[in-house]
């Protein structure tokens, strides 16, 4: 008799547990008000000037800040942003920027702006990284790797505030890539008022941890290894501008790189220039960056709807995303390069023959197939096919283990020589699985009698040790920030780039730098391309690093999101994204 009671109790218990916990993922209206983006790791800081890693610029540059100029995601040309128009002098040394009016800074729980964006903010933002004497220069380490690698600080003579909404910058030497550099993710505009308020309060480093900008989202909170929370910037300047604009299509701005007319290109881009990507910019109430280091977990969360978009889907998962109809996969030939850099300051890697031996010991095609699953093209030089200075007939190292053994022998490297391969722990478009590539290379090197051990740390510690040059060789890469070829050569291998930490090969060569500066002097495309071909030749002879692949850029998101634009220069932009469940 009592068996019946016990049985009924247990059955009731089970059904209750199941009913409560299951039930289809609810499609309540509430979930439309927020976008969750699964990012791959923590940003090092909230001021992109201080760090070149794409994680940092993803999390900050396009969400919190604005720049003077922007790139048009479709054509890649420079379009006005905070600078509504700009004037270049004939000798190409002075640039005058007309700034946009009534652009409001963020109003957050830690700062309330009293005035709009004006010239002082531009001068403050540029002088901060330019002038070592600037009060905010040494705040949070005082290292501005991108600008140091380009040597921009030395090239800018003066930044002058003409009036409330007009700034003039004069250079020492002509630099055709200057405008492109002002449009990169790193040239963001900070708020001078916020900076001075912090300076008086005595903790200036807060400017880089609790950011204030003019971008579509304002910073709300950050938990390391867990999430970053942004709220919508109610009065974002693009919203008002769009509301005022009658929505016929504006004439596209003049071709920037049409070099034909030599006289000053007076771009009187109409102040109402709006680019069609950010049409109605109401967007969502809150944006969350859910930090999920494992790529398989990111995809799982995308499938269950816990994430609306993910960063760097792994190559093996592309097939799965394409087959599912509730996910969309945006694909673009990426402006990036994955390479295997040798630490040229450590013997025996200072000897080019040893580097050539190691380069010819590996078979690039198999690496492409095994790691990139054929979603990348073989790299001969640093420049990908999408860049206008691409050299198709550049010479490349072939897979030749016999030659490798010979070179090693006469370079005096004995059998069983051991070296380290540092594999970066995070996924990147240019190298989706560095550990796996390292294991493959390890096997190739074992064939020619070289014992390689794989070293990997957490991303922040990894980059700190790389900067101190503790590595023999490293598998890493670089994704360009603007379409200019100089953005590949200078940050990766110029002497100036070693202290800034972007020159992983720690390689310094006078005639390499001489050629790069020469290229910057001319505006003429063919002349610059010829110089870059000479640079490619020089790199092939010295071989400080082995270029491996130019990968496609992928962006996976759920089909509920519309308005997502894939940006060829990396970075994800949620400004105008709308979510309808």
């Amino acid at each position, binding site marked *: 008799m009592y068996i019946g009671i016990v049985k009924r109790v*247990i059955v009731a*218990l089970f059904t209750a*547990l199941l009913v409560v916990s299951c039930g*289809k993922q609810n499609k309540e209206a509430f979930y439309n008000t927020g976008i*969750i983006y699964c990012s791959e790791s923590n940003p090092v800081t909230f001021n992109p000037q201080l760090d070149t890693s794409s994680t940092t610029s993803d999390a900050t540059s396009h969400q919190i800040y604005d720049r003077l100029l922007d790139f048009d995601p479709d054509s890649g040309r420079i379009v006005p942003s905070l600078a509504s128009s700009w004037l270049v002098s004939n000798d190409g040394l002075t640039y005058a920027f007309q700034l946009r009016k009534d652009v409001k800074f963020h109003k957050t729980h830690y700062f309330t702006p009293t005035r709009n964006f004006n010239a002082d903010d531009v001068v403050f933002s540029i002088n901060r990284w330019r002038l070592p004497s600037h009060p905010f220069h040494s705040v949070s380490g005082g290292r501005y790797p991108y600008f140091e690698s380009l040597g921009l600080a030395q090239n800018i003579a003066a930044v002058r505030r003409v009036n409330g909404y007009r700034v003039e910058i004069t250079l020492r030497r002509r630099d055709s890539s200057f405008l492109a550099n002002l449009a990169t993710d790193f040239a963001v505009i900070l708020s001078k008022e916020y900076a001075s308020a912090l300076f008086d309060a005595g903790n200036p480093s807060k400017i880089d941890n609790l950011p204030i900008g003019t971008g579509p989202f304002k910073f709300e909170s950050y938990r390391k290894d867990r999430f970053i929370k942004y709220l919508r910037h109610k009065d974002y300047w693009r919203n008002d501008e769009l509301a005022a604009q009658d929505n016929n299509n504006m004439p596209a701005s003049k071709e920037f790189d049409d070099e034909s007319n030599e006289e000053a290109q007076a771009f009187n881009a109409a102040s109402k220039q709006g680019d069609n990507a950010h049409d109605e910019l109401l967007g969502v109430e809150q944006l969350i960056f859910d930090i999920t280091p494992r790529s398989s977990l990111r995809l*799982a969360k995308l499938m269950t*709807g816990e994430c609306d978009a993910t960063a760097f889907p792994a190559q093996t998962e592309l097939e799965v995303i394409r087959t599912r109809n509730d996910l969309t996969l945006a694909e673009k030939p990426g402006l990036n390069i994955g390479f295997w850099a040798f630490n040229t300051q450590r013997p025996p890697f200072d000897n080019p023959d040893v580097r050539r031996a190691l380069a010819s010991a590996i078979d690039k095609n198999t690496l492409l197939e095994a790691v990139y699953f054929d979603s990348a093209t073989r790299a001969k030089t640093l420049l990908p096919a999408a860049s206008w200075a691409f050299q198709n007939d550049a010479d490349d190292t072939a897979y030749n283990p016999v030659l490798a053994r010979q070179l090693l022998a006469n370079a005096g490297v004995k059998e069983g020589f051991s070296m380290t391969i540092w594999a970066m722990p995070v996924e990147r478009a240019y190298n989706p699985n560095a550990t796996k590539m390292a294991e493959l290379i390890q096997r190739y090197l074992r064939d020619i009698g070289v014992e390689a051990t794989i070293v990997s740390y957490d991303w922040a510690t990894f980059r700190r040790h790389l900067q101190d040059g503790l590595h023999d060789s490293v598998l890493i890469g670089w994704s360009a920030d603007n379409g200019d070829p100089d953005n590949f050569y200078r940050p990766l291998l110029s002497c100036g780039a070693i202290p800034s930490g972007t020159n992983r090969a720690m390689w310094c060569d006078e005639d390499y730098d001489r050629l790069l500066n020469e290229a910057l002097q001319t505006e003429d495309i063919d002349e610059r391309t010829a110089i870059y071909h000479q640079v490619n030749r020089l790199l092939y002879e010295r071989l400080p690093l082995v270029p491996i692949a130019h990968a496609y850029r992928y962006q996976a998101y759920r089909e509920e999101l519309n308005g997502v634009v894939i940006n060829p220069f990396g970075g994800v932009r949620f400004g105008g994204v709308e979510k309808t469940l």
Partner: protein
Amino acid sequence: MIQILTRYCTLLTITLLVLAVMSFSLAYLFPGDTLENLTGLVPQNDVQREALERQFKLDSSVVVQFFYYLGNLLVGDWGYSFTSGLPLAEEVSIAMPATIELATYAMLMALFVGVPLGYYAGIRSYSTTDHLLNGASMTTYSFPVFWLALLLILVFSLQFDAAPLSGRISLLYDVPRVTGFILVDVLLSDLENKSLAFKDALSHIALPTLAIGAITTASMIRITRRSVIDVKHKAYIAAAVSRGLSSWQIFTRHVLRNALLPILPLMAIQITTLITNAMIVETLFSWPGIGNWLIQAIYQRDYPALRIGMMAVSTLVITLTILVDLFNRLIDPSREKYEHAAV
């Protein structure tokens, strides 16, 4: 009664002291500079190093250091984590409740599902239902917890999209932290869509609890069944039958209590496996508990976090075990007869 209490209190303090010594010695055992391991502060220059060393009495003898360290432990100044720079006391107070919550729900599931099923299997011993239950509990018990969690994710999250697979609640909800237990916090909070948030939190907690709970429930069933069968063959049950009591009366008055007593000490062991499983499952479901935090700390070689994490988790587990033992000692009249019954 008092004698038992004092005995257990001294045992608890001795064990915690041993733990403190172990965690103190860890600072020396970990690679890297002892000062950093002890305090978590990285001295930039030598001047700061001397100041810190004097402050933490590193120059004086080990014993003085240890007592100073013990003082710090008790007062709650546990040093700073290398990676996040936050004080460790705060980190642990955020991470620990999440694991406790997970372990509590799994333990409740084990108690309210495992024990009754165990009784049912024990009473109907050697019948078909008993073999069924025994087989099921044996299979679930031999699942490695990470494999069971992966299977649950594959089936419930990816296949049926019934339950989410990461985090404690959808990040869109801004739940203020009151007690650290997510379900309690949601109820206490004044969110406008509170019912929605609660349902979301419940669906988030379903899979991890099921993953850990299933294994503990399985072992609970086995233990209870074995205990009930042992009791059924005892002489006083035959005596009760001879007194003409109905089987329900026999079950409630004699079988129920006598079968429960040998189970309690085994529940203490269950707590240990429960916490271990919780720590493993946290990394899979990215549940922001102490396990996840410790394993991140290992990857980032964050030694102060490891030292304090070890201290916190072992103190929690040991106190719980000793409390269960004490509770069992108090309510069980003939404790010596029930030396640890075999599983």
